[in-house]
């Protein structure tokens, strides 16, 4: 029998599945009053896709014929994700600052 070897994909899948469960419980505990900030902050964090965009900008040119495309696409994607990151977190911050308790 060959030595047991588990593809890294399986570990990633495990993390993915567990994170769905974490997300499920965490999001149910979010108060309905904050559902709009929830949407804007999930927007901001899903822009962590910027890591893929940065890798794409950072390709070594001349290595493969498609490198220049990858660089260009990565550049645009980085800019789009940056709009989202800054916009998303800042607008969330602005909204959250408005939620105040009754002053007694």
């Amino acid at each position, binding site marked *: 029998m060959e030595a047991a070897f588990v593809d890294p994909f399986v570990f990633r899948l495990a993390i993915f599945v567990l994170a769905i469960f974490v997300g499920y419980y965490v999001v149910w505990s979010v108060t309905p009053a904050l559902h709009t900030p929830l949407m804007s*902050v999930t927007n901001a964090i899903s822009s962590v*896709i910027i890591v893929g*965009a940065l890798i794409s900008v950072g390709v070594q040119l001349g290595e493969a014929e498609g490198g220049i495309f990858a660089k260009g696409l990565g550049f645009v994607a*980085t800019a789009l994700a940056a*709009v989202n990151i800054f916009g998303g977190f800042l607008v969330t911050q602005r909204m*959250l600052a408005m939620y105040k308790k009754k002053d007694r």
Partner: protein
Amino acid sequence: MLSANVTALLYLVSGVLFILALRGLSSPETSRQGNTYGMIGMTIAILTTLVSLEANNALTWGLIIVALVVGGGVGAVIARRIAMTQMPQLVAAFHSLVGLAAVLVAWGAFYSPEAFGIGSFLHIKVASLVEMSLGVAIGAITFSGSVIAFAKLNGNMSGAPIILPGRHVINALMALAIVGGIVFLCLDPANQSVELFLAITILSFIIGFLIIIPIGGADMPVVVSMLNSYSGWAAAGIGFTLGNLALIITGALVGSSGAILSYIMCKGMNRSFISVILGGFGADTSAAGAGHVETRPVKQGSADDAAFIMKNAGSVIIVPGYGMAVAQAQHALKEMADVLKEEGVKVSYAIHPVAGRMPGHMNVLLAEANVPYDEVFELEDINNQFSQADVAFVIGANDVTNPSAKTDPASPIFGMPVLDVEKAKTVLFVKRGMGSGYAGVENELFFRDNTMMLFADAKKMVEEIVKSL
């Protein structure tokens, strides 16, 4: 250069910080701290990526800095300037950017697989190709769907559903074509081609448009939540391609968050997710009372009447809806509530889950007008208090107060949870005219003895009431 293990651990840390960012939203007090965790997590993820770039040269850094400064600057300006009433369209626009970024990253990986460690051009590993294709398809659907949602919410496009003949057949065929294309692409390495990947992308863009076009304005809370969820799944697909833990965790979080919000919104309307997605709701107004013209009289009142009634009331429950957002009446409303409180009236707010155009829309607007959040209640927490309230002040809401949802099985909104405003001693109903609500259903409430209609623009009416108080 960091070792692969350290890099992976740092991405894990940022994933955990993102979980904490969402966890913080369980209460307004902890939410600001949570947002800070989110920003730290994002910074860690970006820095980690930057130190491990393949081409560490001036061109790369120049491009990155320009992209971050321009994109970040635009984002910051938008975040500062946007009016709170425009949040639904802003969120839709942001979703479209995540979707488009996912598409572009997938294409970047397609052209330069070496940099992503997933093979070489047109010889991409099958597993990665599956993940990328799913990422590109979902990303493209998110993009085009969000663009339509944005146009509808922003008023660039009519909110009315646009029904194409045979749309279910067209959509089903296109979905089949996309799935078939992905299967074919991944089946044999010889099938990898730019044209096929492009065809999958384009078809996904088109189906995104077609899915959202037939969905009407008041179903937008579901659509926006659903697109939120899609943007998460698209990110997760790309995360698998990159083997990036931060992206995988975030994708899962956002995907489930959007799914839960969609579920809550559907429940708030007593509609199945499928029926919302199939669209067309609110298109035919013939649903109830077809062809029958309403002739029953309604009781009309003026601002002075309303002011008199509320001044002498012990408690007032305010029920805001989308109309309040349209008229920007939240600040005037707060002013009215303050005057009433000085008169010794107890004021609280009742929010229906689907009031407005996105989840939590009304809460944000009231918070903007400095209404303390502990005066604002959700449907299940306040519904039994209407029977003890002297006045229910309905402003810009309609279908969510319709008692026939409880009594008339023939009504299209039958079974939808509604606010029991009719149980209050007096119902003051601010409305522009006698038109029916979004669902095209006559509201029983208008003809009740204890209802007084205040026909005017919501903001003007509230301002006049403040004057007469």
